């Protein structure tokens, strides 16, 4: 039996908890067995990146190749949206041309949602402003599951510039769906108190949090979005929030370190942290390709649900 439920992946909660598990299973199967190029054979997939991206764009392209999609990419700087065409008209045109899946990144929160509301095919959000980056959250969840075998009783800290982070927001959505206990750590200027909710605590004391967690996710300071009234000198930030040699000692032996990249060495983490055997950066980027293959397959072909 095959069913199609979610049409888009704008954030992690576009899929149910059951579908989320199925997606991670599918990604694990791709990792183990590889994929066949017939899964999306002949399906036109458009990569629409309004914002620079190295790892996400490359990862999506590779995932699309592995499932056999017809890949189209174009430079949005020259698109009609820049000439005053409405989102609805652009969506209509793209669908008319034959595009069935759009992978979109945009600097404004909500762009993926506005596009999806107007587009008849599938939209995968590859990052919209500070809002969501669901495939990043999926690859983080896959990495945690690979490590711990499941999510029961897991405690995760997300550290740094939460305010501007779509990675943090999507991880909060996914982790709370799975019952993971989340602690957000950062200075109040970069961590709105209003982000606390059921299953999500807010702290500014990294040293108190570190020994308690199974995983710590270090976020970079998004300099391009930060002015000098949000942060004093970086030395003050690193004093409080940098994962360095002494803080690595406070982290449990079986805990892991995650980072969505790109890194700012010497700011949110030191070379010691990058070299630490508990770091899982390589697994994260590897898993990224598999979860993106699974998302493409899931949206286009539907989830395989046992009868």
């Amino acid at each position, binding site marked *: 039996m095959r069913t199609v439920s979610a049409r888009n992946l704008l954030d992690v909660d576009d899929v149910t908890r059951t579908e989320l598990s199925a997606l991670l299973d599918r990604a694990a199967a791709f990792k183990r067995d590889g994929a066949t190029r017939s899964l999306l054979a002949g399906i036109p997939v458009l990569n629409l990146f309004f914002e620079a991206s190295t790892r996400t764009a490359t990862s999506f392209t590779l995932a699309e190749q592995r499932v056999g999609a017809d890949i189209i990419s174009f430079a949005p700087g020259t698109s009609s949206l820049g000439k005053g065409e*409405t*989102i*609805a008209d652009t969506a209509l045109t793209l669908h008319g041309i034959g595009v069935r899946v759009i992978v979109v990144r945009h600097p*404004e*929160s*909500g*762009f993926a*949602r*506005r596009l999806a*509301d107007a587009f008849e095919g599938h939209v995968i959000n590859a990052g*919209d*402003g*500070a*809002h*969501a980056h669901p495939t990043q959250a999926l690859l983080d969840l896959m990495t945690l599951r690979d490590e711990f075998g499941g999510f029961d009783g897991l405690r995760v800290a997300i550290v740094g510039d939460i305010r501007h982070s*779509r990675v943090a*927001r999507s991880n909060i959505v996914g982790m709370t769906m799975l019952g993971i206990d989340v602690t957000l750590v950062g200075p109040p200027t970069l961590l*709105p108190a*209003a*982000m606390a*909710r059921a299953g999500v605590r807010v702290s500014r004391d990294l040293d108190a949090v570190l020994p308690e967690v199974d995983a710590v996710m270090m976020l970079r300071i998004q300099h391009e979005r930060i002015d000098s009234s949000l942060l004093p000198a970086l030395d003050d930030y690193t004093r409080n929030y940098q994962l360095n040699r002494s803080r690595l000692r406070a982290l449990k032996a079986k805990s892991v370190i995650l980072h969505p990249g790109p890194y700012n060495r010497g700011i949110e983490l030191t070379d010691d942290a990058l070299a630490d055997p508990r770091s899982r950066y390589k697994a994260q980027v590897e898993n990224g390709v598999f979860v993106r293959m699974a998302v493409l397959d899931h949206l286009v072909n539907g989830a395989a649900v046992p009868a």
Partner: protein
Amino acid sequence: MTLLIRGGRVIDPAQGLDAVCDVLVRDGRIAEIGERIEAGDATVVDASNAVVAPGFIDMHVHLRDPGQTHKETIASGSAAAVAGGFTAVCAMPNTTPALDSPATLAEVARRAAAAGLARVYAIAAITKDRAGIELAPYHLLSDAGAVAFSDDGNTVENPRVLRQAALYASDLEQPFISHCEDAQLKGSAVMNEGVASARLGLEGSPDLAEEIVVARDLLIAAETKKPWHIAHLSTATGLDLVRWSRSRGVAVTCEVTPHHLLLHDDLFDDYRADGKVNPPLRDTNDSAALRAGVCDGSIDVFATDHAPHGIEEKAQLLGAAPVGFTGLEIALGAYAHALPDLPLDRFIACFSTNPARILHLPGGTLRIGAPADITIFGERSWRVDARTFHSKGKSTPFDGWTFARRALVTIVAGSIVYQNGELMARRAASA
């Protein structure tokens, strides 16, 4: 022309009147109020099962004329006004050019007369071009008919400029009106700062952005003794500051909008800009405090902040879309919806008596001899359909809502300008 308004419940808070009776209008003025008036030559308006009130005055509208007439014109805005039950509107000065010179005010008056529907008053700028630097010529603007002074959406940033403006204009009766938002605290916000903005990854404007300017302006009002009016309060603390200032004897009044009484920052999950407005829609504590403020008399005026835009402009991404939406044609129903238990005399005072008093306008009462500006409304259920608005602005977050009360007949200077859904321009000669 003689009008006989027959059998309505006539309520005029200015003279403590609330009785079922007839109103006779002759030569553009209220001629007689009483039971079973006979006037053989009069046009009869049946007001049974309806309320006859002094004409509603909206002291906060944006008519976009001159300069942005694709959004609204004085003619289309006047039509929207009378269709919503307003006999007069006060146009904010954020036009192009700004309403900062007697010549521009004269042009607005000319266009309003040509439209021949609602009375249109001008609120002139506090500073030249609303730039916050040079003082506007208050006494010349007063001579040209300005009913108040405001830089509207551009909060005067420099307190030295605002203080000196208030001192210079302190001999004039026209109040200063403050749109209270600190531009620095607001930053690039597209909505309220709170749980919703944190979840949606959108920049929010904190309550403090309003409160800090309310406090500053009320202190300047106290020191300069300039009558002051706070526009569209959106926060509970902002209202408390008004109460505090008033308790110290400062001549301060304030207004609300229907959207701040009824809507909240949970409207942005679809990332559409329909609810994008300045000041932003806040949370349920704020709207409850504002509704309580109306009921206890702390809030004087029901305004609309009617801010029409093209539908395609509002359909842009949240960051690019303009702020505000159409309000004239939903206000009467929306305020009744927000405050179903508010006594009718308070309802009418907020729509008519108080704005007339604050701005020293003719009207606002049905006293014998007063200009016959009359709003007749009734309990008639209706559904908002923005496509049918007379305003060019077809965007409102209330589209599709059902309201229980609506305007039935609007009379300006003794002429029926709106009745049974039809507009009728008044003769240029009248009053």
